[in-house]
């Protein structure tokens, strides 16, 4: 039996804060990270949606100008999160060949790509900068982290839309269990608050249009929810086998028990209304961890605040958990952060880990009138999860019919 995998470092930059501590504090305080976009292009294009979950701390205020010049904003967020996580883990001294990176993005370097296209159109091919390709490629964030911490055990990028961040963390499990590497930095990022993705998501009627009250726009489980809110930022976790962590005296936040990935093969964007694929992902993940559905105490739901998505996830959860679902404390943290797409799974993994570590489930904001079609126990103010061993799962689903679920357990030495 392979050893336990534990979480020993956390890092994040989000619409709520520039690091994990400030983000978690704001989340527990019930703050919203959503605000009006103050950029010329909002008016220039007369966008139907004028707000988003913008990073609280600008990457330019953290990294050097040269780092920012050579990295797309998505990679900048990735680097900030990974450096915090790596430092938090005690800057592990591990042979580079034994360090791996599993780091995701949903879209990749969209700002870089579209700025370069503007340069091409307006100024010609010679003005398309040579760093364009390495900056726009979706593996750019993972590669940037790998170079920064000297990871030579393999650097990979899960790309499965909004499931990417969770899938990347799930992918880390096998790297550690097979003994190929000793430590993995995993997570995901996104920097897609650009007029094109905003216009495109709006044209598919996926986004909330609550322009007059951005802080109230992301409202999963509320009857008046009208779509998701784009967010940006990144999250990273440091994962290693328990014996490795103990041998180097690392602090341990929680155990990463298991994960699972399934696919719907139903529709390219719509969730399977029966939630079959999502249910299968939850069940598989619990099975892989040798757990029963009745072991689960807390769920960080995908819950993006779209009318159909929240119901589809609820249908899947009811299918899996039956009556036990009513005993599970459910948090929908996108209500505060917005939807970080490829970064969502990463920051929500961190919230799940901290919920176990501090025994406190974070609140869901803006649930003024709970949707009667989703009868669940939604946590609306910070809630103590009680004593004893706690089990929590974090769900992520993405366009393409991707379902990814990871399972965490509270850690007692």
């Amino acid at each position, binding site marked *: 039996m392979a050893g336990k995998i534990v979480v020993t470092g956390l890092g994040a930059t989000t619409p709520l804060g520039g690091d994990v501590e400030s983000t978690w504090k704001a989340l527990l305080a019930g703050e919203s990270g959503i605000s009006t976009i103050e950029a010329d292009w909002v008016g220039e294009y007369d966008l139907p949606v004028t707000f988003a979950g913008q990073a609280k701390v600008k990457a330019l205020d953290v990294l*050097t*100008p*040269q780092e920012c*010049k050579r990295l797309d904003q998505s990679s900048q967020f990735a680097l900030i999160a990974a450096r915090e996580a790596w430092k938090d883990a005690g800057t592990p001294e591990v042979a580079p060949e034994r360090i791996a990176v599993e780091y995701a993005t949903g879209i990749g370097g969209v700002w870089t790509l579209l700025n370069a296209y503007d340069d091409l159109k307006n100024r010609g091919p*010679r*003005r398309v*900068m*040579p*760093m364009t390709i390495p900056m726009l490629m979706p593996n750019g964030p993972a590669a940037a982290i790998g170079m920064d911490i000297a990871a030579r055990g393999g650097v990979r990028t899960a790309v499965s839309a909004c499931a990417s961040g969770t899938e990347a963390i799930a992918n880390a499990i096998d790297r550690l269990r097979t003994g190929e590497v000793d430590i993995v930095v995993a997570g995901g990022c996104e920097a897609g608050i650009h007029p094109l993705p905003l216009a495109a998501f709006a044209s598919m009627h996926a986004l909330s249009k609550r322009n007059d009250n951005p802080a109230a726009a992301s409202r999963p489980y509320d009857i008046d929810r009208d779509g998701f809110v784009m967010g940006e930022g990144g999250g990273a976790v440091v994962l290693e086998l328990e014996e490795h962590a103990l041998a180097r005296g690392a602090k341990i936040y929680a155990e990463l028990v298991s994960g699972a990935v399934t696919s719907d093969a139903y529709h390219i964007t719509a969730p399977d209304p029966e939630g079959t694929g999502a249910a299968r992902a939850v069940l598989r993940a619990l099975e892989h961890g040798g757990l029963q559905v009745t072991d689960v105490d807390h769920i960080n739901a995908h819950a993006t605040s779209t009318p159909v998505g929240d119901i589809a996830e609820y249908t899947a959860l009811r299918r899996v958990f039956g009556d036990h679902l009513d005993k599970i404390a459910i948090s929908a943290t996108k209500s505060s952060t917005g939807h970080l797409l490829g970064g969502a799974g990463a920051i929500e993994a961190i919230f799940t880990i901290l919920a176990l570590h501090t025994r406190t489930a974070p609140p869901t904001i803006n649930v003024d009138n709970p949707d009667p079609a989703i009868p669940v126990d939604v946590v609306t103010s910070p809630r103590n999860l009680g004593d004893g061993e706690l089990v929590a799962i974090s769900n992520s689903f993405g366009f393409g019919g991707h379902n990814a679920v990871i399972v965490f357990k509270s850690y007692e030495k």
Partner: protein
Amino acid sequence: MAFSQAEVLAGLAEIVNDETGIATESVQLEKSFTDDLDIDSISMMTIVVNAEDKFGVKIPDEEVKNLITVGDAVNFIVSAQG
């Protein structure tokens, strides 16, 4: 109006600093871009394009490999001005 050698050097130093973070005072005529300043080919191409914009000259790709030192680049730009 043509730029003097000193003006080109100062302008080039600013471009190098902006791209790489190297202090402007380190960008001296006898310094080699690769050996002394540790500038890679990707940064070099960015510096070249920015220098073309700044000084209104054309630096052909086949010429770039001959620009070993900062002085080579400064001299090329000074003489390429119309």
